[in-house]
């Protein structure tokens, strides 16, 4: 029987589920012509409540396995819970005025965001492949639906279709991998698998095949080459706040799963696969972004590149503690800055998402100095300029890589971040050095959007200027995760 402590170990998920159901319930009671903004505010409180639950859960006495060893609360899970929940909160806040603008009057939107977060949270704490699979599907299916939320726009439904078909396709590979791993070890628990594979004096080829397929599935979800191909299309078509969400939170959660699998369970060595994937992602992402004129599409390529930088940390797996810590730090920094960038894109997109071209950003520095400055800050962070979170995250990852003697990967990464600076800069140049071509209206920043931007701004700045607290947290974890 589950104990009370067991329930506390899934407290944030419980809070989110209850909140999601409450939103559905209220939605059905609301009169049809009434604005759903209040519902969004209610949802935002749900995210805050879940954050509070996570903080409560972070007390040391609740750390450990729960529900028959299917999940585990530790520094690691708490960290990713907070990342996911903050992203969720910011996404809800930036959607408050976005939805009415796009004439989307479904309160279910908020319920989907909140319930999707249940899956993402559980992904970071689950240690049982069954649970990981279901959690992954929850977050994926919620994303599929959300990306098709502008139902009248052909691009949005197309984006949903592409994401859905290819996502399910990749899920098939992931699942087959799990089946084969189960066949090779007889278990679906990550720690049991690690134990069995660790004891075996000869790991059979079946396990290698299994890990290859699992990697395929997860690499698809984090948009890592050679499985990045869906990203630009899907990000371009999906509603902007949804892209802000799905380019950060599910990605961070999937990276959490990948960390658990690569660092805990996978005794088959993925080193060269990850090496190539990292190099390829960085190059494809950065090079592909160079010629883009659509800002969302450009940021999609940039997110591929960032997945590549993150994979560099995985390639440093032999330097375990540093690798995990730098991967975690990068996930957080990336989530913060990318969220901020997409928040600005959301603000700029306008009704019907008509203003997404780089040209539309011409002279933004004059039209809306604060918005332009904030956007510049996020872009600089994505480039990796000091005093932003992006700089230190990159610095940490590459210094880890060089300590692991991954000289070539470090070089490729640094060259890529140089190439990368070019297209971010193009946007900055647009904003500050071009005359506004057409007077495109910049709608005033409302409270919700302001809060969302503030959250990402503060997080990005904080991770850059005073990264110590987060660093300590990420570093306290590697020893904790290994304890059985």
């Amino acid at each position, binding site marked *: 029987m*589950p104990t009370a402590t067991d329930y506390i170990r*899934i407290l944030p998920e419980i809070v989110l*589920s209850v909140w*999601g*159901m409450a939103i*559905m319930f209220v939605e059905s009671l609301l009169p*049809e*012509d009434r604005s759903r903004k209040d519902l969004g505010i209610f949802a935002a409180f749900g995210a805050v409540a879940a954050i509070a639950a996570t903080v409560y859960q972070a007390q040391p006495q609740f750390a450990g396995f*729960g*529900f*028959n060893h*299917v*999940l585990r609360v530790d520094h690691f899970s708490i960290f990713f819970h907070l990342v996911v929940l903050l992203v969720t909160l910011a996404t809800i806040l930036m959607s408050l005025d976005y939805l009415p603008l796009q*004439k989307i*009057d*479904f309160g*279910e*939107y908020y*319920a*989907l965001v909140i*319930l*999707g977060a*249940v*899956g993402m949270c*559980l992904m970071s704490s689950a240690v*049982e492949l*069954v*649970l990981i699979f*279901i*959690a992954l*599907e*929850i977050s994926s*299916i*919620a994303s*599929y*639906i959300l990306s*098709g*939320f502008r*139902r*009248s726009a052909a691009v949005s439904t197309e984006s*949903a279709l592409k994401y859905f078909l290819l996502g399910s396709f990749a899920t098939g590979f992931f699942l087959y991998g799990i089946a084969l791993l189960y*066949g090779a070890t007889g278990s679906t628990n990550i720690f049991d698998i690690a134990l069995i594979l660790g004891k075996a004096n000869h790991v*059979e*080829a*079946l396990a290698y*095949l299994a890990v290859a397929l699992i990697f395929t599935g997860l690499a698809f979800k984090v948009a890592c080459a050679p499985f990045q191909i869906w990203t630009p299309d899907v990000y371009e078509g999906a509603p902007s706040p949804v892209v802000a969400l799905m380019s950060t939170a599910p990605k961070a959660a999937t990276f959490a799963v990948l960390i658990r699998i690569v660092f805990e369970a996978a005794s088959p060595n993925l080193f060269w696969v990850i090496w190539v994937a990292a190099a390829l992602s960085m190059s494809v992402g950065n090079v592909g972004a160079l010629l883009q004129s659509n800002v969302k599409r450009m940021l999609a390529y940039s997110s591929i590149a960032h997945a590549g930088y993150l994979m560099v940390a995985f390639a440093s797996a032999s330097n375990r503690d540093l690798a995990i810590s730098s991967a975690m730090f990068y996930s957080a920094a990336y989530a913060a800055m990318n969220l901020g960038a997409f928040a600005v894109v959301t603000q700029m997109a306008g009704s019907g998402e008509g203003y997404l071209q780089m040209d539309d950003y011409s002279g933004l520095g004059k039209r809306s100095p604060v918005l332009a400055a904030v956007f510049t800050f996020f872009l600089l962070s994505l480039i990796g300029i000091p005093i932003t979170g992006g700089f230190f995250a990159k610095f940490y990852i590459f210094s880890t890589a060089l300590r692991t003697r991954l000289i070539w990967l470090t070089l490729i990464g640094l060259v890529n971040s140089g190439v990368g600076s070019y297209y971010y800069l193009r946007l900055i140049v647009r904003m500050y050095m071009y005359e506004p071509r057409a007077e495109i209206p910049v709608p005033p920043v409302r409270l919700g959007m302001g809060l969302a931007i503030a959250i990402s701004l503060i997080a990005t700045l904080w991770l850059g200027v005073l990264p110590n607290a987060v660093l300590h947290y990420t570093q306290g974890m590697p020893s904790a995760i290994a304890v059985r």
Partner: protein
Amino acid sequence: MHIFLFLLFGLLCAGGAINLLIQRKPINSALSLIVVMGSLALIYLLLGAEFVAVVQVIIYAGAIMVLFIFVIMLLNAGEEEHTKGSKVAKIIGIPGLITGFIIGVSVLLQHGPQEKRIHIGELYGSASDVGMMLFTKYLLAFELTSVLVLIAIMGAVVLARRSHSS
């Protein structure tokens, strides 16, 4: 007897899968998929998986495929159009698939478990056994599926329903 049954349903299954690929009308493909699923259910029985075999028929063949056929009818999906489409799928995808398949099969044959042999009638995955496990070891996962199903229902409603304002 066992081998005969396996071959019968196995071939039926493979034939259904191939037929799904060959047929140009979605409705025919759907029907061959039902054949695949039905014969799979029987193969599950051969493997002794009682509960799963039953559920296979109820959920897959019963619920999911009905949904498919319903949508095919709703959208009036006729014969497949022949578009030129994708070179990449032909040039890279299919050879990739074939190599992957050959490699996979070779692994399964060489390193796959061969020692265990299955005897007919050894039913062990009964509903009560599976149920017990579902409500003990996998309790959380089971509870979580409710969230999943909730999302799915909501998604289907949102995507298919008409807008309030229009």
